[in-house]
């Protein structure tokens, strides 16, 4: 309080006549920069959506117009959904299956492991933690060939098992949950322990409900990571079109069409791939921002 008053006094005594003007210019500049950046980031999506409702020739001749000049059409969407090269409804199903199972896997397995590492004393705990943290250091791209190698050994290449199992738990989520569980007070568990609750019951009935904020972040990252994942499915199911996810299918269709790209189909495909994530983002916006901030700082 004292400092604030001092600041005011100080500023008043300086009596800088240009101050309000400089402030106004600053405000205008700040808004101008922010609006310019926001447009740069959002306009590409708006153009994409607008053009996905045009005919190919309209897209090629007037990409800059946000309205169709040759009539509104769903031809692009029809083309991709009924493609004979790849069964897109099946691909959409695969994408949801992959993303939901990955998310559920992370929610259960990552939080269980995080809880054990934070709260339960057992031999080998340090080693288990070191192993998990150690694998976090491995850059995903370095894993490309090793992952393929093990899937081949286990006969999981081009199977749903090969698609889903490798990402059903991850070290990052375990780490996140461990940090969260370390932050909640131990007396709650002690009270539950006195009541005679087992670790399992204690975890699922007492601890997990308290972990909803952390679990929300975990669920969002799990779903988003799997939905947008390209390299893991490329390695596990990259040569079996019936098991493709949406990013794989899009990359495949881009490759198939050669030099003359069928933009109506590719733009519609881009919109379809983005739509579920966009809906989830707008509904759970707050949690996305909080999640990034939380994990970003905690690293």
């Amino acid at each position: 309080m004292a400092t604030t008053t001092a600041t005011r006094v100080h500023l008043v005594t300086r009596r800088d006549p240009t101050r309000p003007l400089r402030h106004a210019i600053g405000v205008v500049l700040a808004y101008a920069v922010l609006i310019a950046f926001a447009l740069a980031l959002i306009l590409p999506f708006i153009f994409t959506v607008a053009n996905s409702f045009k005919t190919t020739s309209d897209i090629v001749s007037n990409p800059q117009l946000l309205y169709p000049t040759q009539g509104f059409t769903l031809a692009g969407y029809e083309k991709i959904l009924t493609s004979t090269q790849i069964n897109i409804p099946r691909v959409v199903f695969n994408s949801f299956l992959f993303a939901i199972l990955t998310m559920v896997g992370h929610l259960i397995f990552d939080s269980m492991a995080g809880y054990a590492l934070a709260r339960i004393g057992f031999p080998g705990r340090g080693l288990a933690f070191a192993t998990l943290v150690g694998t976090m250091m491995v850059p995903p791209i370095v894993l490309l060939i090793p992952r393929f190698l093990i899937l081949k050994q286990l006969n999981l290449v081009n199977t749903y098992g090969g698609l889903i199992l490798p990402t059903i738990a991850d070290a990052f989520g375990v780490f996140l949950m461990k940090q969260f569980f370390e932050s909640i007070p131990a007396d709650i568990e002690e009270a539950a322990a006195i009541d005679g609750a087992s670790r399992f019951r204690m975890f699922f009935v007492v601890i997990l409900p308290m972990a909803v904020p952390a679990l929300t972040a975990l669920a969002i990252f799990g779903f988003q990571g799997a939905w947008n994942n390209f390299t893991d499915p490329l390695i596990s199911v990259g040569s079996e079109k019936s098991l493709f996810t949406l990013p794989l299918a899009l990359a495949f269709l881009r490759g198939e069409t050669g030099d003359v790209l069928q933009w109506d189909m590719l733009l519609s495909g881009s919109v379809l791939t983005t739509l579920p994530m966009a809906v989830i983002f707008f509904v759970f916006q707050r949690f996305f921002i909080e999640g990034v901030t939380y994990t970003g700082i905690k690293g």
Partner: protein
Amino acid sequence: MATNTLGAQQAVVPPVAPRQTVFSKTAQEWLAGFSFVAPALIIVIVFIFIPIIYAFFISFTNWTGLQPPAEAQNVGLANYQALLTNSGIVRTEFFRAVKNTVYYVLGVVPMQTIVALFLAIIVNQKFLKGRSFFRTAFYFPSITSSIVISMIFLWLFNRNGIINYFIGQIAAPLGGYKPETWLNDPNGLIHNFLRLFGLTINNAPDWMKTDVLGQSIWQWISGPSVTMFTIMLLNVWTTSGTLMLIFLAALQDIPGQLYEAAAVDGANRWQQFRNITLPMLRPTTFFVITIGLIGTFQVFDQVYVISKGQPAGTTATIAWQLYRNAFRDSQAGLGAATAFVLFVLIGFFTVIQRRLVGSSPK
């Protein structure tokens, strides 16, 4: 269920057999610990830990990726020698990929860090209305699939695309503009810059034609190609939002009293920024640079969709190269060796960066 019964017994008759109870309680803790950690640990061991070790051995073989790995023959250090020491096409391509990747990293990491910091500082201004709108707008690209974003950029930057249209509109009164083929232009940015001063390969000094690891010095200093530059823009465009949020959180953690005290001492806005904001953001900046380095060294998806290493190999990154070795050229052993060299490179740059800038945040 069993534990419940035990708990009940314990509650009813605690003093009867304390030793046994204590022991089984411990055993139960152990069992709980093991079974809680087991699923995640097994997945990570089977799909990351073992594969990495296995692939390390495979990097000393001629495995094609097609036959069962056990049938591959040991070739000793041959893969690593082909990449690093024996002059030949493999080494030339590998060092070309190193060059492309390093230009990419050196361009993207500073750009995205500065843009993110700049945006965060503006969004953090107290007088600003609609802050959450801007936060949302800036973050949206980060939730989108890298494949979709590559597709959108492929479309925006194609020869008849929107980018050329708008540049054409702006350039029309200034004498017109010959549409740039952004995604099929192998010319390096530094080469293009030197050409403005009349320096080309034809009149470059002779020492610039010396061959170093398969490329002339002139080729080494090309800078990223125009196509690579477009992919760099794409990456900055995608990641700045996430990094901005990280900076924003750090900015909001700086105690307001610091600024008030500085204002009392007569520090102006710029001095406050130099002497309070920047030092307080140090750990966050290092964190952002570290994840930036690790991420950009792995650039792959965008190359896969947009250019597949073309034009003239100028977008062939190390990640693309190892994928190509293993899955297109049936040289998975060589690909594995490439992967481990990349692993070492990423580790090396991360350590250097940490040494240079001190500690990272906890």
